[in-house]
């Protein structure tokens, strides 16, 4: 079936290059679900009101400029809702005839929204949820992920630590389900790349220690005591998806050690200081348009809409089926300011891409690290590989 698609696509290509492209008006939407949350530890991490939407605006500009030469136009609607309003918002997007939808939501809502979209034959891009299950046993055939998974992030950290020969880990995990899931991904990465977990502790979320005008006073007393008496270790690996303690770990440990994971050196898909691989141009365009620095979700949304743009430009289709088939085909490739082409894994719809390791100021390193090899692509050393994924919706 796949082969037939490939052939058809090739035929289409010849047709397209022979005559000039047809006019296409591309309609897309970004649906963002906003959850009630506590303040972040650092006010630098306060989410901007246009989180993700700014990435859509830049993508519309970029795609629109290219489209100007081909007779293609791009228009992306954006809507932010509460979890309770999400279903109705998706319904009205579908009712308006839009079939290419980027969703910024947690896994539970994302799954429901993707299924709702599937009934209308729409294609959904995941620009937020990192949950591994979405790329594994609960994957969806109409759901592509531009957001990296926890597995990719954890592998990016593990490869760097192992490259540094920091192979004895002290894992500190938060106590909320999302922290526990991230810790499990980090433990799995340790096994995958040969690091040893010599100490494993859980830091209970008791609702305290969060940012207050005197929070640091308590933290300075609590954390050394908490980390005392650990087995000899090279690094501390933190799993704190909730964002309640990991940012405090550096400088407050009993043993002076580097921190990686949710604090210290953090894996991220993009940040506003990333300059390598021509990314300066992305940053300046983004800042000129939005008046702020780019954040990972902006980049994920931008990527999703650029995938649509590539399909429209090269395969002359804005139909959800056509975009999906082109994105998953061998012909697809995209330059994403990460030094190499990014492509999709055709077994679970995950975009394979390098992961940046960020210290809050600069890109310290980029994974995959040198020497981690793979028979298909070094990028497949990050995250669920074909034999590991239980996803069958793409078969």
């Amino acid at each position, binding site marked *: 079936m796949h082969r037939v698609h490939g052939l058809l696509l090739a035929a289409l290509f010849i047709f397209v290059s022979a005559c000039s492209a047809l006019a296409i008006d591309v309609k897309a939407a970004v649906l963002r679900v906003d959850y009630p949350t506590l303040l972040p530890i650092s006010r630098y991490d306060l989410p901007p009101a246009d989180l993700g939407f700014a990435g859509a605006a830049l993508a519309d500009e970029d795609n629109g*400029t*290219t489209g100007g*030469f*081909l007779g293609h136009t791009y228009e992306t609607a954006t809507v932010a809702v509460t979890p309770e309003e999400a279903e109705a918002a998706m319904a009205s997007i579908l009712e308006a005839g839009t079939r290419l939808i980027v969703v910024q939501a947690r896994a539970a809502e994302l799954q429901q929204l993707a299924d709702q979209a599937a009934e209308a034959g729409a294609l959904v891009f995941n620009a937020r949820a990192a949950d591994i299950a979405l790329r594994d046993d609960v994957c969806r055939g109409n759901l592509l992920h531009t957001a990296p998974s926890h597995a990719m992030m954890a592998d990016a950290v593990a490869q760097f630590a192992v490259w540094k020969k920091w192979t004895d880990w002290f894992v500190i995990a938060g106590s909320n389900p999302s922290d526990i899931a991230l810790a499990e991904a980090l433990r799995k990465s340790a096994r995958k790349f040969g690091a040893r977990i010599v100490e494993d502790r859980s830091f209970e979320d008791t609702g305290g220690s969060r940012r207050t005008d005197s929070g640091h006073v308590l933290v300075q007393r609590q954390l050394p005591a908490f980390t005392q008496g650990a087995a000899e270790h090279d690094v501390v690996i933190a799993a704190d998806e909730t964002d309640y303690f990991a940012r405090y770990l550096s400088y407050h440990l009993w043993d002076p050690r580097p921190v990686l994971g949710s604090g210290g050196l953090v894996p991220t898909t993009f940040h506003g200081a990333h300059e390598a691989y021509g990314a300066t*141009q992305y940053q*300046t*365009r983004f800042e000129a348009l939005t008046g702020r620095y780019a954040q990972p979700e902006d980049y994920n949304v931008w990527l999703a809409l650029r995938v649509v743009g590539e399909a429209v430009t090269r395969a002359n289709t804005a139909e959800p089926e056509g975009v999906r088939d082109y994105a998953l085909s061998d012909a697809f490739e995209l330059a994403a300011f990460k030094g190499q*082409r990014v492509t999709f894994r055709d077994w679970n719809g995950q975009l394979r891409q390098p992961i940046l390791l960020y210290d809050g100021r600069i890109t310290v390193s980029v994974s995959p690290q040198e020497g981690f090899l793979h028979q298909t692509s*070094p990028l497949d050393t990050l995250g669920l590989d074909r034999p590991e994924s239980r996803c069958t919706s793409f078969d």
Partner: protein
Amino acid sequence: MKHLLLSTTIALLMSAPAYAGKAFISNERGNTITVVNTETWEVEDEFFAGNRPRGITASPDGSVIYVCASDDNLVRVFDANTYEELPSLPSGPDPELFILEPSGKRLYIANEDDNLVTVTDTETRTVLAEVPVGVEPEGMGMSPDAKFVVNTSETTNMAHFISTEDYKIKHNILVDQRPRYAHYTADGSRLFVTSEIGGTVTVMDIDAEGAPTVVGKISFEVAGVQPEWLQPVGARVTSDGTRLFVALGPANRVAVVDAQSLEVLDYILVGQRVWQLDFTPDEQFLLTTNGNSNDITVIDVAKEKAIKSVQVGQQPWGVVVIE
């Protein structure tokens, strides 16, 4: 001390100098231009070139050096003999690469941040036109008859053929991801466009009216180098049209290609992150800028071998050689 040793070694090594020329190398991070003597291969001088100097070229008579000072948003101009700065040229924002027409009058500049090609008159120092192109314009090539300027846009992934008569785009050709550079053969019959992330060179035949037809694509393969790092950037063709040299960026190699059959013949190991190329005017040597090792590599064109490297400034980007 190191310099002295190096120069002594070079002086000893050089036996039959070809001619006395000068290579000007723009150092993107160092904000300078390094001047290298192409007879002795010694660094003669280094001077301030503005902020983030990238594209560099010379007037047809070799008397003036133009450089894109990207972060100053202008083209800086220097006397090629005294290195004295002359009045600047308006370029539009963030000029990256440019090409000067053979008469030396009009300069065509890619404005990376603004999706424009700016046309500047080098005599009156005025902007003649702004041509809207694709996202992140970079590569600039000119047909030998000066009728077409080809701009490549890195995020739109097209080669835009701009008529120099009316500054209108006449043809748009889609190429692979992140096209960096466009270069015509001396007879104007062929055009090569490098795609950094796509890892290919698209080859177009150009008809009498200047219209392009894609006739082939060159790919690269080096044992022991991950295909992801084979990223074509700068390119040059010998004037007899037989050999194409392609800088492969982080693969630290220059590919030698039969420009007729498009077969890749060899890979020459050079410095790290090889970026742009230029021949000496007699085409005896090809110089490469190596951004991560802060040096240039000198390639003997006939032997297709690297013969030496010369340390220059911080993150060398572009190079132009004059007699």
